[in-house]
């Protein structure tokens, strides 16, 4: 069996097996922080970094880890990495750290990370595992950004506001389209609605592509996704 190319794996992480959209993992931070684009981007970057590092470390130590104690070791590795990321955010992105608050330490509880350690990194070489962390983390981060942008646009009528929290400098208001917006979008129910819309949109696109493919080559249906 040949390992699939990077592009193919990237598509898997971003689309076919997106941790948030398809596997529905890590929904707590996903729903909680996506009230704006910058928050989604910040948590996305933090999660991506932790996922890549944890996949790398789990893969590097996989030969010495006995099956019975693998879960405590994953927890140990992930918790240490999250603590490091939290310190780094506090040092270099203090405003973003304030804005994300408890959700940085809570990356520990993002089951997408332990799931990738268990399913992928514990059985594959380091390079491949880091790539897996990158594609899965990117899929999660892009979903966070998309939902963040959508809710910010709808709820506050702006886009990319407060990017200074990530880039430094004076507070910026971003692209202001309207003054104020539809409030429920940035309240908790808006998070559920937005995620539901994103999942529905993905399913609709998948179905349309599937039908198109079937029409093109009758009798030879390929990948069917939910």
């Amino acid at each position, binding site marked *: 069996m040949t390992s699939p190319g990077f592009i193919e794996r990237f598509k898997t992480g971003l689309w076919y097996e997106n941790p948030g959209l398809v596997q529905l993992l890590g929904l707590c931070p996903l729903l909680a922080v996506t*009230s704006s684009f910058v928050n989604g981007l910040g948590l996305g970057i933090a999660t991506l970094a932790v996922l890549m590092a944890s996949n790398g470390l789990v893969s590097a*130590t996989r030969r*010495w*880890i*006995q099956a*019975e*104690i693998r879960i*405590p*070791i994953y927890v*140990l*590795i992930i*918790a*240490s*990495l999250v*603590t*490091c990321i939290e*310190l*780094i955010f*506090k*040092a*270099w992105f*203090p405003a973003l750290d*304030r804005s994300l608050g408890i959700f940085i330490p809570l990356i520990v509880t993002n089951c997408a990370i332990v799931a990738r350690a268990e399913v992928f990194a514990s059985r594959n070489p380091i390079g491949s595992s880091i790539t897996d962390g990158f594609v899965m983390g990117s899929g999660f981060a892009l979903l966070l950004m998309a939902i963040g942008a959508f809710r910010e646009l709808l*709820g*506050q009528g702006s886009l990319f506001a407060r990017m200074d929290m990530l880039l430094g400098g004076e*507070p910026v208001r971003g692209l202001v389209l309207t003054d*104020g*917006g539809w*409030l429920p979008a*940035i*309240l908790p129910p808006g998070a559920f609605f937005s995620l539901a819309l994103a999942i529905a949109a993905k399913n609709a696109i998948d179905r349309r592509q599937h039908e198109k493919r079937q029409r093109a080559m009758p009798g030879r249906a390929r990948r069917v996704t939910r």
Partner: protein
Amino acid sequence: MNTALFRSGITLAVIAAVCTALVALTYRLTAEQIVANEQAWLERSLQPALAGLFYTSGVTESKIIIPPPHELPGSEAAIVYRVYAESDPVAALFVVSARDGYAGPIRILVGIDTMGVVTGVDVLEHQETPGLGDQVESSRSGWVRQFNGRSLLDPEPTGWAIKGDGGQFDQLTGASVTPRAIIKAIKETLLYFDAHSEDIFADVDPVANKEETEQ
């Protein structure tokens, strides 16, 4: 002896040691920057009440903590930063909590000069409804600036309310609970300052002083 168990224990110990070392190293590399960030954040958050004052540096070192029970707004300890020019008191910056907000305490900064005039107000922390109550944030509207230069003489204490309640201050569209809570807290802080300004600027630490009298 159970060698499998022994091996597991060793593995766990080694990985725990490596992880701890990683965290310790990161901590060492970031600790200085984190302390500097927190100090900078504190100084920046006090700035709205310091603008236009003449003072000699070191505001954050002149902090006193007034533990509850006190007559200031909020049930938790209040923080006061005293501002001096050389050894003359200039102003006191109160960090207190308005209790009657829509969702949880609203942490506010109230600067009052020695004449009892408000030097600046800012909302530091709150959980008010996004889009409604959060309009009190200085980054979202100029609402908090209307208190600059006001005192208990301007308006009289009865005028310290939103216009809808017969007072002299603007409210916000769609939100009256949050402004009402903040105005009440500012007024209570002004009343407290009026009664205790000498204690606040006295060099004796009022906390220590209070404990002594209680014993």
